[in-house]
């Protein structure tokens, strides 16, 4: 995207027009019901855009935009972190993305393990990890996290035949199945979903059609510039107001119905979906991605004996029991409902994973002030 395009999707005048349209459709949608219209997005990058541009200060009253389980780092479960920490403590060198370092495991995070002497390298991409492995005479395990978008990159590296001393500890996750879980949660108030534009560039918007048919709620695919998010919300609330359950694509410049078939082929050539726990959510059938047997030699779980018991001489931190990450990610609770938020749990000493990642709900609320009402601030109160 060139600079002009970026400006086009960051035009405050258009944003105001969209905010007005949003207010209009929210009023329409609420005519039939007294409660607020609740929609969920399932992408940390959407929350990032909403928070960073202060969009919540422009949302109309009566609209609740809930952040769902859309941050891959946040939903990486304790046992997965434990595996990486155990490997690191066994002396195996680990490479991973920066925000995975502080995700708490049972007793330690990778950052804790590093402070205690384990070797953990932060990389920006899997190819950087592969380069690192090529320069080493020892084993390097890449602790891989991310949704289908990132998993495609991992798959491509596997197909290219990485060096023999390189292997992958996959914590990759697949988004569509978890939307089913959230939609089926008892007491859910979610009337529509905003789907992640970048994941949909891979899967295509068609992937959501069976979901819409089963649950009768609309899904709108949206991009990540402030105008993309607003336009996606306008479309979603409009569908809710009209009582229409279908998939709409509000990100047509990147997403089509069928997605990137080459990328899908690469993904499913290397990975198979497998059930697994998402931190704080539930067991998600087909929610995790594991390496197929063909590529077993690059699968760290099959290459190493991972001694988890070695971690358990540390008692789990008691604070974790009060952590409400799960309810927060499920959209049932907000960070202010958690007694740890901003006190015992802060970005520099996170208890739950939602505080770890820059995409986590609690981290974003802490960083950007959550949802304080900033509409009343008067500039230059007195001079």
């Amino acid at each position, binding site marked *: 995207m060139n600079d002009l395009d970026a400006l086009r999707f960051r035009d405050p005048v258009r944003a105001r027009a969209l905010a007005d349209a949003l207010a209009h459709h929210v009023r329409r949608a609420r005519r039939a019901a007294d409660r607020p219209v609740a929609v969920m997005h399932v992408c940390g990058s959407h929350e990032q855009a909403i928070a*960073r541009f202060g969009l*919540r200060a422009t949302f109309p009253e009566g609209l609740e935009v809930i952040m769902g389980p859309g941050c891959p*780092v946040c939903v990486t479960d304790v046992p997965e972190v434990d595996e990486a920490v155990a490997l690191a403590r066994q002396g195996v060198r680990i490479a991973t993305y920066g*925000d995975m370092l502080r995700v708490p495991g049972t007793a330690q995070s990778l950052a804790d393990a590093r402070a205690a002497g384990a070797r953990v390298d*932060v990389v*920006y991409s899997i190819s950087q990890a592969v380069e690192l492995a090529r320069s080493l005479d020892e084993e390097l395990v890449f602790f891989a996290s991310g949704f289908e978008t990132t998993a495609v990159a991992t798959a491509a590296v596997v197909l290219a035949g990485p060096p023999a001393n390189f292997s992958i500890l996959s914590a990759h996750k697949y988004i569509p199945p978890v939307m089913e879980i959230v939609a089926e949660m008892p007491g859910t108030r979610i009337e529509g979903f905003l789907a992640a534009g970048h994941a949909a560039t891979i899967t295509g918007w068609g992937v959501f059609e069976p979901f819409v048919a089963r649950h009768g709620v609309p899904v709108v695919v949206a991009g990540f510039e402030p105008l993309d998010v607003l336009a996606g919300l306008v479309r979603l609330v409009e569908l809710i107001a009209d009582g229409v359950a279908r998939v709409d694509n509000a990100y047509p410049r990147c997403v089509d119905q069928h997605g990137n078939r080459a990328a899908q082929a690469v993904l499913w050539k290397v990975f198979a979906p497998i059930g697994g726990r998402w931190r704080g959510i539930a067991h998600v059938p087909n929610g995790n991605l594991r390496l197929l047997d063909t590529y077993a030699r690059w699968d760290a779980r099959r290459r190493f004996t991972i001694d988890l018991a070695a971690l358990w001489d540390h008692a789990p931190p008691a604070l974790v029991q009060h952590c409400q990450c799960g309810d927060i990610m499920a959209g049932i609770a907000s960070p202010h409902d958690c007694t740890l938020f901003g006190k015992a749990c*802060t970005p520099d000493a996170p208890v739950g994973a939602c505080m770890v990642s820059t995409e986590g709900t609690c981290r974003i609320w802490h960083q950007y*002030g959550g949802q304080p009402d*900033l509409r009343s601030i008067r500039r230059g109160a007195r001079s």
Partner: protein
Amino acid sequence: MRDLRFLRPVDERITLKYGAGGRAMRALIEQIFADGLGEVDDGGVGLAAMDDGAVLRIGDRWLVITTDSHVVQPRFFPGGDIGRLAVAGTVNDLAMMGATEPLALTCATIVEEGFAREELERIWASIRQACLEAGTTVVTGDTKVMGRGELDGLVINTTGVAITDRFVRDNGLRPGDRLLVTGTVGDHGLAVMATRNELALEVELASDVAPINGLVRAALAAGGDGIVAMKDPTRGGLASALAEMAGKSRVGLVIDERAVPVKDAVRAAGELLGIDPLLVANEGKAVMGVRAAVADAVLEALRRHPLGRDAALIGVCIDERPGAVVLETGFGRRLLGEAEGELQPRIC
């Protein structure tokens, strides 16, 4: 005045976050380093103030003293190197206290065994150049060599002293005051991060590292007593500097994000890495709080100086929400948080 913000107890082990310039570091200083040390009488400024330097009374004038240790990986980066950084860092800390005529610097050096002489020569050439620009020199020093592996290459500590008739704190803001930044933000932090990670960017990033005492002198000449607070937005970036000024002054700040100058290349690199340019280090910039009456005069003086051409008015102090920094994004409003912990790139 004591900072409004709550600090956590320091952990059992000192991790990297304690060096990141945010709340964790302030907790470490307050709870350990400044415990029972650093009291200054006679209206000066001591350690507990955690300002950019200390101020001691000498007759009817003030001695300002500051010290800074420098380690940077890589030691050479686009726009500068560790030597230039070592001089600019200390000269600028003095300037932030209103002391723009550094008397002299000291320079203590710890070198790792096996370090290349040629590299030392290049670094000291740049120390000389930066001293020339700042109008000062190094008058005493200390040298240690440690065994291979006992440190990572080179550590340079510089201390600076200066005499001034009037000093400026970082806590003098009142509602109605205006905030200025002396140029583009994020240049140094993102240039170093991009180099360190060998990011193949198609854009040119360069550190802004420079002594800015001359620029600050010009501003003080134009604004006089109307310049009431200064801070250099180094580690933690503009966001931390503003949060600290707001907290110590007990005012709220409203910042217009679109008025904050950020180079296109820096913005692009920041988006790519998921790192906000407002949260990363600058090494040749200052944030100034000024009375409204002199704001235009100070801005004009800054812009006339070669290092202040991109200076901008970025915000205003209010009496609501003391300690908070409210960012007007053009789309809405949010609170600008401080950088906390190590800055880590996001995965997607």
